[in-house]
Structures are given as C-alpha cells and as structure tokens.
C-alpha cells in the first residue's frame, strides 16, 4: 500500500493557468500543505550544518535513555540524541526521495514520449512493456530492481526510480496522446516539423504542468518507499542514516524505548503527507482532478401536512389523480424559489392528458412532485393531492408505496439510462410484482415475460434474461412501459418518452402507450415540449409557463381555438405542409424567466406582443369558462393581431432552448407559416 508508487493517472491536461501554484496557497488545505512542505525543505537544508556534529556525538553516559527534556526523543545505543538525528536525517531522506523521483521522471518521460519519436512498432512494444510493469505493485518492482542494482543508497535510488517509472510513463503516454490528437500538433506534423522538435516545442510544454504536479505527489510516495527500503535494511547503509533506518533500529527496542521508533515514523508520515497534500491541492486547483461536487441546495422542511379540503362530491371513483394548488419550493441561498406555483388539474380514468411547455416551465417537476419522487429537501405543498381517492399528503408512506408501486407507472425520458445496467431486464420488471404484488420469484418472472410480450418485445422469454445494453432504445422504452404494467396501472406518466428515440421508433412507443390506455382504461399523462405529438395523442392539453398552468383546452382545439398567446406561439412554431417556404420559421422572442427572477405581473408579458400595462402589473388568474377550458391571460379574448403576433425574425435564435427538439430544428430550413394566418 505504502509502496504503491505509480502516480495516479490524471488524464485531463491542465488548462494553462500560471497562477495555480501560488493561488493554491490561498486555500486552507493548500496553505497548510505548502507551509508543511516549506518547513520540511528548509529543515532539509539547514538541519545537517546546524546539528550534524551534535547528532553524531557519542555519549556513553546516556545510553538508550527515554525521552526527557534534554533529549526529546531519547538517545540510541551510543547515547546519541535521537531527536537531532531525526532532524539531520531530513536531508538524506528528502534528498534521496527527490533523486529517485528524478530518475523516475526521466525514465518515465523517455518511455512515455517514445511514441512521438520512435516508430509505431517500437512504440507499441514500449507501451506493452509499460502496461505489464504497471500491473505490479511498486514495492515488488523496487525489490526486483534492488536485487539488480544492489543493496545500498545508490541501488535504492535507482530501484525506486525504476519502480516508479512505469506509472509515470503511463501517465505521460496518456497526456501525450491527448496533446498529439489536437489540431495544432497535426498541423505542425503536416508542416514537416521534425519529431524531436515536435516533442520539445509542442508536446512537452503542454503536458509539463500535470507532470510536475504528479511528480510532486510521487515524491511523497518515493519518500515512503525509501523509508521502507531502508527499514528493511536494503537502503541506506554504513554510517549514514535516514528515517527508514532510524525506524528499523528503533523498532528493535520498541519495548524499552518507543520514542526511538515513533519519532522517525512521525517524520516520514509528516514529510510524505506534505508532498502528497501539496501536490493534490495544486492538482485540484488547476483542475486536474474533477471532484464534481453537486451545487449546494439549502434544506427545506419536509412537506408539511397541507390542508386537505376534501369535498365528498368530488371524490368520485372516476378521478384517478386530483391535484390542487401544488407548489414546489426550493430554499436556496437567496431565499425560497418556487419552480412550480399553484398547479391544479384532474385526470379521469382512461383519459389522455398532455402537458406542454418549454424546458424549465415546471412540467417535469410537477409530475415528480405528484409522484413523490422529488428530492425530499424540496418542499411540496398542495391543497389536495389524491391518487385513486387516497390522500398522498397524509397517511403512511408504506401504504402509499404499495399503491403507487402497483398503480402509478412512470416512463422516463432516456431509456438508455433509465434501466439499471447491472440487473437483467426481466428481474427489474419482476421485482415490482415481488414487492407489491406478493408474487414469488417464479410467478413474478413469468409475469415479467408476459408483460414484455404485451409490449411486443419479440422472444420475450429470452429477452427477459438479457441486460439492458442488449436492448435497443425503442425496445427499452417498451420494456419500461411493460414495467409500469406489472401491477394494475391506473395512471402512466410519461415524461418526454420519445425525445431520446429515433423518429420512426417514437411513433411506435406513443402508439403503445395509447393502446395500453385504451385496453385497460389507464389514464396517461404525457409530458412533451412537442405540441404536435400532444395534439395527436391526447384528449386534453395543459400548457405550462414559468411554473403555472396558463391554459387548459381540448387537444382538438389546440390549433384553432387556443386563447393564450403563448399556446398560439407554441403552435405557430411548428411548421406544417401549408407553411410558406419563403418565410422564416416564427420563433418566440426572449426567453423563459428564471424561477428566481419572475417578473411582476404575467410571467409571459415580456415576450408577448399583446401585453399592456395591466399584464405587466398584475398576474392574470386561471379562469375557467363554461366548457371547462381554462386560461390565465388578460388578453385571452382579444383578437390576435394578424401576422404580427410573434416576430418572425430569422436573426433571432430560437430562444426556448428546447431539450432535444429535433423536429423543429431540423425543419428550420423548411417552410414556415406566419402566425395567425391559419384557416
């Protein structure tokens, strides 16, 4: 462990930031490590001239004394002061470690850059040798080379250097490969720059920084390795002494005189740590290691028991999902932010409802909050949240788990990442029935096969034994739907289920969801940024903007009777066969407001051509009309101004960064219709 000298491979070349080494001293760890390293180095320089003679003074009156005020670490068998000997040994210990590291760096560089200089065959041979050598622990290599180079100081330096070299060579190879692949090196090659010049001028300067950092870390390991070899009696010999040797001698008398072993041991650890920590701190500073820390999110209280005004008349058995005034609150550093603000809707048995809106409008968060799958540090409040008549805001989580696990199915966006790669597909399906349906292993497996067959997976029995990576994307998404059908689903929530799929497969998956809905009267909630898809497969559409529902209307009226300017803009942004090929595709100018910086008044007003003073001052309420359609707009009944509803400027980039809106974008050079001119 201690001797595992090869430096950790850090592949990402450092961005050239000269301040890294100095700036690291400003971080607490960096400053401490730098200070420690400085102290060790200063000690290495000044200790021998100051105390060498004292440390060598034999005092026959003070043999093998314990620690005292005169001798902090006691004396050895010749009465020499051990504390001073440990201090004096700093130079040899650190110096030899650095020397060994130098050997390793030179040898590693020669081996690692060989690919640039020598021919392809020789380079491959070297790479193969390095590969085999790297597989062996450093200490084993060090012992091997110690036999060749002989016992003693020189032998140990060479042995540790050679033992560390393969790891360093590997690192260099990786870094060189990264640089050589870059364009300017290729350009230099084509321009006929010689191999050596290519190496010194283009390659080495670009890999120097990570190499130096790793050499610093490596020096710490070399120090430990050297201590180990000396401790074993294979390192420093004769009258000279380093920490390892002092340690070895001290261990023999540890019962009589523990300080003699502990003092050099502590010295080794401190010095090794100084090199290691400093190197790591610099590496972190200049971005060699990616310690991807997630951004800190503040704690929010557990969702409190929100008031549940239960009106018995509405607890109809046909209502699958009833959500009222749902709010999600994130407590950030700048106070609470609400990405979902007062959303309410109902889903009836067998009904297909779509939620549309730009990315970031709160669609996914709404359904995750309903499903109880949000991080529990986000606060979810609602006036009412019932699923199949069960209040999800109160009651035991265990009962909810059973109900939701068997009746509430979810289909996520990316089928490639939504299956567990380590488990067989069949068993991922079966565990739903084992957990919630009370089936035994055999019956659950049989049901999984049956469900896979139901979602038209060919050769379902064999497929069930396969791993997700053996499935195609479309097949995985179908299996995911099958997973939702393991219990007795009453609701399938599909969050952008087709965005990650090929266009041809998209249709299959949507049809499958639709056929499941029809055959078993399952309600479906389809989330999409694609108005066309939602218009085709849904009965009703909810349009969300900036965390609110801004319009609800029958899907059939989407193209013709939408009243909210935002809905109309979404519809207009989709080209169709009647679009005028000579006009640029209309886009919605501006961008979705950040939930933390919502404007006063209507959130859409800054992007709306119809907005007037009232829109900018007061947020419009969501009003229900006689037919049950809802809209939140002061201008809902105003006639859209012909042709000028939305800017059709081609120079405006599509503002609403759609997740993967392949359709609209690939159609960007295709015909586009001016808004408001539809029949």
């Amino acid at each position, binding site marked *: 462990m201690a*001797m595992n000298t090869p430096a950790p491979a850090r592949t990402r070349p450092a961005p050239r930031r000269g301040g890294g080494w100095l700036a690291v001293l400003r971080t607490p760890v960096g400053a401490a490590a730098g200070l420690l390293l400085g102290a060790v180095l200063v000690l290495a320089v000044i200790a021998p001239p100051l105390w060498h003679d004292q440390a060598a003074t034999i005092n026959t009156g003070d043999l093998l004394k314990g620690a005292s005020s005169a001798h902090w670490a006691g004396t050895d068998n010749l009465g020499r002061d051990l504390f001073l000997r440990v201090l004096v040994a700093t130079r040899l210990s650190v110096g030899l470690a650095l020397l060994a590291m130098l050997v390793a760096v030179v040898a590693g560089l020669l081996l690692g850059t060989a690919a640039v200089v020598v021919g392809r065959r020789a380079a491959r041979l070297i790479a193969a040798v390095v590969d085999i050598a790297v597989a*062996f*622990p450093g200490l084993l290599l060090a012992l091997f080379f110690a036999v060749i180079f*002989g016992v003693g100081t020189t032998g140990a330096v060479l042995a540790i250097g050679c033992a560390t070299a393969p790891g360093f060579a590997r690192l260099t190879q990786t870094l060189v490969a990264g640089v050589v692949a870059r364009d300017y090196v290729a350009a230099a090659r084509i321009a006929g720059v010689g191999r050596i010049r290519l190496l010194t001028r283009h390659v080495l300067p670009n890999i120097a920084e990570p190499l130096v950092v790793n050499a610093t870390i490596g020096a710490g390991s070399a120090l430990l390795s050297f*201590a180990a070899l000396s401790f*074993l009696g294979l390192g420093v010999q004769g009258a000279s002494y380093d920490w390892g040797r002092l340690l070895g001698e001290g261990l023999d008398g540890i019962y009589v005189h*523990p300080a003699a072993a502990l003092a050099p041991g502590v010295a080794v650890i401190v010095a090794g740590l100084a090199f290691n920590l400093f190197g790591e701190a610099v590496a972190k500073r200049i971005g060699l290691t990616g310690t991807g820390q*997630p951004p800190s999110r503040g704690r929010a209280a557990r969702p409190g028991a929100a008031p549940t005004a239960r009106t018995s008349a509405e607890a109809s058995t046909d209502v699958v999902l009833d959500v009222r005034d749902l709010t999600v609150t994130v407590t950030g550093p700048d106070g609470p932010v609400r990405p979902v603000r007062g959303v309410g809707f109902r889903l009836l048995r067998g009904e297909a409802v779509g939620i549309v809106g730009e990315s970031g409008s709160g669609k996914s968060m709404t359904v995750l909050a309903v499903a109880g799958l949000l991080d529990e540090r986000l606060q979810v409040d609602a006036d009412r949240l019932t699923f199949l008549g069960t209040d999800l805001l109160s009651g035991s989580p265990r009962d909810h788990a059973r109900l939701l696990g068997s009746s*509430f199915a979810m289909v996520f966006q990316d089928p490639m990442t939504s299956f567990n790669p380590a488990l067989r597909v069949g068993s991922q399906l079966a565990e739903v029935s084992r957990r919630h349906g009370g089936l035994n292993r055999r019956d659950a497996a049989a049901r999984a096969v049956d469900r896979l067959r139901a979602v038209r997976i060919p050769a379902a029995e*064999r497929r069930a034994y396969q791993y997700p990576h053996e499935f195609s994307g479309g097949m995985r998404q179908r299996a995911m739907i099958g997973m939702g059908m393991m219990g007795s689903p009453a609701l399938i929530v599909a969050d952008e289920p087709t965005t990650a799929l090929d266009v041809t497969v998209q249709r299959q998956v949507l049809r499958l969801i639709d056929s499941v809905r029809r055959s078993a009267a399952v309600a479906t909630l389809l989330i999409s940024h694609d108005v066309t898809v939602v218009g085709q497969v849904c009965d009703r559409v909810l349009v969300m903007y900036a965390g609110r529902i801004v319009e609800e209307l029958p899907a059939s009226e989407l193209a013709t009777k939408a009243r909210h300017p935002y809905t109309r803009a979404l519809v207009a942004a989709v080209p169709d066969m009647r679009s005028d090929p000579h006009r640029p595709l209309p886009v919605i100018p501006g961008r979705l407001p950040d939930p933390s910086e919502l404007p006063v008044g209507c959130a859409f007003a800054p992007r709306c051509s119809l907005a007037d003073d009232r829109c900018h001052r007061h947020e419009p309420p969501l009003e229900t009309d006689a037919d049950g359609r809802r809209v939140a707009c002061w201008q809902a009944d105003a006639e859209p101004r012909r042709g000028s509803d939305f800017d059709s400027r081609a120079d405006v980039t599509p503002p609403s960064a759609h997740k993967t809106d392949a359709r609209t974008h690939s159609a960007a050079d295709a015909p586009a219709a001016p808004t408001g001119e539809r029949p």
Partner: protein
Amino acid sequence: MTTLSQAPSRTLTRLTGNTWIRFAARRAGRLVLSLWALVTAAFLMIHLIPGDPVRAALGPTAAASLVAARRADLGLDDPLPVQYVHYLRDVLSGDLGTSMTFNLPTSQVIGDRLPATLQLALTAFAVAVVIAVPTGVLMGVLTRGGRARRIELGFTGTSVALGTIPDFLLGVLLVYVFGVSLGWLPVAGHTGPASYVLPVLSLAIGPAAVLARLLRVQMVTVIEADYMRTARAKRLPAAVLYLRHALPNALTATITVGGLLLSAMIAGTVLVENVFAWQGLGDTIVHSILAKDYPLVQGIVLVYGVGVLLVNVMVDVAVALLDPHSTTIREY
C-alpha cells in the same frame, strides 16, 4: 411471424456466447503474455546484476575454484539463450533451483513460507472489504446529494489520513499502542489467533480507508443516476434500493481499485512481516536479498508476480460479472 422473431434471436444468442468466449480468450492470452514477461524478467534479473553474482554471493574471500564450481552448478557458463531455455523448462516443471543459504530446493523453502503469507494477505483483504463496503455504502447514503456536509468532511479527512499512512508505519504505531502501552496483543511471531490481529490490521486499515472513500463517491454518483429514479418510482424499500440497485453499479468502479489494493497488499506483506517477525515469504525475500541467495530471490519474485497476475485476472472477471457490458469493450 415466428420466423421473423426467431431469426434474429438465434444470431443474438450466438453473439452473446461469443462475447464471453472472446473475453475469456483475450484475458487468457494476456495472462500468458504477462507470465512469460514475468519469467523472463526473473531470468534476466540475475544476469543484469553487475559483476559475477556467484562471486558476490560467496564473498571476495571465496576460492576461485569454488566460485567456478558453483557457476558450473548453476549453469552460468552456458550461452545465455541456452540458459534461458533451461530456465523456462525448469520453471515449467516446478524446479526453481536450489537455495544457497538453505541448501534446499527453492520450491521447498517457498512451500514452507507461502501459507503464512497467504493467510496474512487474504485475511487482511477480507477484513478490509468487510470494513470498507458497509462503511462506504452507509456514508454514500448519508451524504447523497450533498447531505450531511460535516459528516462527509470528517469521513473524507479521516479516510485520507488513514489511507496515506504506510502499512509498516501503521504497524509500528499499532505495536506501540496495543503491544507496548496497553500490552493487549502479541507484537511478534505467528502463534494463535491473537497474533494475527495487529499484522492484519496494519495491512487492512489503509486499503479499507481508500476503498470506503472511493465507494462513498461512487455511491453518491450512482444514487443520482436515472435508473435509481426508476427504482424509486417502483417504490422499493431503501435496503433494496441501495443494496440491490446502487451497490453493484458502485462496486464496478471500486473493484478495479480493490484489485490494485490487493496486489499492493501482497507486496505490503513484505514490510509487515518484517515489522512483526512473521515467518513468511516477505521475511524470507529480504533475508535472501541481503544474503545474495539469488535462486531463492528469483523464486520468491516469481511467486509474488504470479500472485499479482492472478489477482488482476480475478478483478477482470469480477468486473465482467458485475458489469456485463464491459466484456464487449475491447481493452487497449
């Protein structure tokens, strides 16, 4: 309809079968290559020693006739290729030469010492895993998504500190605390279960800390994965969620490092055996290096090397079992 769905399935079966066979063949090929490199290196070791190894072993005062006789015994007067062929033949038939200091067949000396070392290394590895896996999983779950910052900081700090203390220094420290100060445990020799405690701990604590730290990071990453959201959507209990769905995926990355740690542990026995006067291979190799007993050194280096190579094979197989996808990816 049937033919349509059957035809691609048969092809796929053949392909899946082939993936594993190809993986096994590739891995076996690499093992043979590495073994050959190892044996060659062991052979060359003696010939790379500057000067005459026999003279070095027998000392400057030994009679020239004795040196010559010993050289002839060892076959050192033959041309190098002939010696190489003889060496390969001997190694393959289990003959590792004769130890100069013990005057016994090297294989017999190794056979006597190997069990002690194996017991030490394997026990230490088992202890390291038993400490690391529950700790890493628990810490991962506790600190998921940036929770419990203080616990994370404390844990990371402690594990980094424990991980950087080299095993032999940890051994010295343990000897001092539990052997000298408290007098609870024996500090030397190989007598009964109590004598295992300190050597095993000195070998295991560092790797356990490294493994646990790595596993925590992996768990935290895995818990954020899409498929964990799927698993949560299935409303599975926490134990199933973390142990069945998260752990295997977190282990895949950890196991490679675990293998490196195990091979490092094999080498680490050399030092720890010397600290605790444990009569194993590590103790023997140091003495034989100092005594210039080259056939014995050669033999022990081979044994250690084979051990490391076997560990590497086991790691690759374990990774393949945990992450079936990895078998289809070609290594370098």
